[in-house]
């Protein structure tokens, strides 16, 4: 097997390996955080006691690795390259060279990100959301100079790579379907990858612009996100004009929320497919499932403000974003009801992928029910940035998302390794 191959399946395996590497590092970092919380004074070999900046760098890198390099790459780029062409009767992805370029740009992006651990000041400390001015001023803390630059460059590269992959998926699904593979016959996995690819192309371009603007605030003397008159460590910031940190929050979350649907939609598609397969019956209300997939994608673009209920928006915005956010619970509920209906009286085969999929449904419900609680601005104003929110998105993205990755890995293992799991 050639490493620099343009064959879609090799590229898919490449993405899965990249996600595997990232999830290993990301999990080690979360273990490090847990151990630190239990024994804060522990003297680590080769490192010493974990300082606050080390902990915050671990938080930042854990989030960035998991959200971008695991939950975006594996379900979307990984599995779609593995089986999408076969599922629509095409021999290849539409743009093999662009596809390979996407993978290797993602690898470069990961290397740039990881190198932030080894520069002076260490990794960036402002979390995966990188709110300015903390992320825009070197004086704001260690890791906020070279480490932050590397983070921004890495995210920029990742945006380019994701857009390449998203464009490739879109073109493949639109142009490369075999005769008879009409829109109304496409597998739900393909509908999910198509919707996620649409979201990818739309929102990663916004994140790219935001990262570029923040990089300009660092090095080109602009002031998109930094207001005038900041006083850091007793020194007045005279370098910046009249920027707005809120602008970053808008741009970042316009990307950030659809991003979680990019991560979970392929898992939903796979779950619909696997449950139906192992229950030996068709997907009930198949057209409804297509509609709900598209609705989740569409509404996903209009809910970013629910991350900003305490950020100081006009209170009317709180009401509007509450409505769009609750609205997204309806297609999500329709999906859950559909899975329950598939399972009802089915006597399924409890194969390994089926067990992972059942786990996905359970965890998605558990994480999902906390959604309508957080969607209420008055309640969110109490829960914002607490472990309730951490639990909410970890149940949905981390737990359910990873369960769907395992379901896919065990189901398509023969395609990856050329042999069945015994």
């Amino acid at each position, binding site marked *: 097997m050639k490493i620099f191959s343009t064959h879609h399946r090799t590229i898919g395996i490449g993405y899965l390996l990249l996600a595997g590497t990232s999830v290993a590092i990301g999990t080690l970092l979360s273990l490090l955080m847990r151990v630190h919380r239990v024994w804060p004074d522990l003297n680590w070999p080769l490192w010493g006691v974990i300082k*606050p*900046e080390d902990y*915050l760098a671990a938080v930042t890198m854990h989030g960035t690795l998991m959200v971008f390099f695991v939950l975006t790459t594996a379900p979307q780029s990984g599995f779609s390259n593995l089986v999408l062409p076969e599922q629509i009767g095409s021999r290849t992805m539409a743009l093999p060279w662009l596809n390979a370029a996407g993978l290797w740009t993602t690898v470069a992006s990961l290397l740039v990100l990881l190198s932030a651990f080894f520069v002076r000041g260490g990794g960036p*400390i*402002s*979390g995966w959301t990188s*709110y*300015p*001015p*903390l992320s825009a001023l070197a004086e*704001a803390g*260690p890791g906020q100079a070279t480490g932050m630059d590397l983070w921004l460059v890495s995210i920029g590269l990742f945006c380019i790579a994701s857009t390449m992959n998203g464009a490739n998926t879109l073109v493949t699904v639109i142009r490369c379907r075999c005769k008879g593979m009409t829109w109304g016959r496409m597998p739900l996995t393909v509908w999910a990858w198509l919707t996620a690819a649409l979201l990818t192309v739309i929102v990663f371009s916004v994140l790219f612009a935001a990262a570029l603007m923040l990089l300009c605030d660092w090095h080109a003397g602009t002031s998109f996100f930094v*207001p*005038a*008159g*900041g*006083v*850091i*460590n*007793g020194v*007045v910031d005279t370098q910046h004009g*009249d*920027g*707005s940190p*809120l602008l970053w929050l808008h741009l970042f979350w316009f990307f950030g929320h659809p991003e979680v649907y990019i991560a979970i939609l392929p898992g939903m598609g796979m779950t619909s497919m696997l449950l139906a397969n192992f229950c030996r019956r068709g997907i*009930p209300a198949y057209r*409804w499932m297509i509609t709900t997939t598209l609705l989740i994608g569409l509404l996903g673009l209009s809910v970013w403000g629910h991350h900003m209920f*305490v*950020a*100081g928006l006009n*209170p009317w915005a*709180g*009401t509007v974003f*509450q409505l769009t956010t*609750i609205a997204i619970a309806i297609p999500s509920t329709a999906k*859950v*009801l559909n899975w*329950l*209906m598939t*399972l*009802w*009286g*089915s*006597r*399924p085969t409890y194969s390994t992928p089926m067990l992972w999929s059942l786990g996905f*449904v*359970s965890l998605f*419900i*558990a994480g999902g*029910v906390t959604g*309508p*609680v957080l*969607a*209420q*601005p*008055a*309640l969110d104003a*109490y829960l*914002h*940035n607490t472990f309730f929110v951490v639990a909410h998105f970890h149940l949905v993205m981390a737990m359910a998302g990873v369960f769907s990755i395992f379901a896919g890995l065990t189901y398509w293992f023969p395609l990856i390794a050329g042999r069945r799991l015994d």
Partner: protein
Amino acid sequence: MTLTPILAMRWWLPQDAALHGAALDREMYLALWIMTGLLATAHLVMLVGLCIGRREAKRSIWRLEVAPLLLLTILFGWMTIRAERLWAATRYAGADPAVMQVEVVGAQFVWYFRYPGADARFGKTKPELVQPGEGNPLGIDPGDEDGRDDRVSSELVLPIGREVDLRIRSLDVIHGFSVPEMRVKQNAIPGQVFHIHFTPVHEGRYAVLCTQVCGLGHYRMQAAVRVVSIAEFARWSER
């Protein structure tokens, strides 16, 4: 291995010490119980559905999917209306202009509280005058009449039963002003001023936290709110 730390954990919301807290707590518990019920029901349906024998009969989408979906949509709609009323009640209207004003300023990694004094007007501030070491952490302009009687405190002292309007700002990066017992949370964003208002109804001392990562001292960015009787507040103000 003992279970004591888990059993001793505080499982419910902390004490509610603000006037609007009771309604918020009711809504919170209602939402949590409804969602716990949905979680349990969905799992029960899944388990029962997996245990019963195989059914091949043609199933009605309308009865099994659309009807429950409609019911849940009505439930979510009802919760949304309640939530919107609660949000509107606390946030749509600003505080009465006559209420007590206090300015909250976040700076790496301290909270400052500024009282406008007898004239009820805050003096102008200038970034270049900020000198925490010389007793002027907010950069109050000594040339401004309004600022002469301004008082900067490291503790937020509030009289019981009187509404307070906080004007929240930040000197450097984004901070998160949060007092769990007062059921308030609002980001402090440099370059902008935001207002929140509430009425403390229980005397006591409560923690002010920072809920937005603001740098390496974020974890220790804490202060205190002290809610005191009106007489004691008057004494504190004159001191």
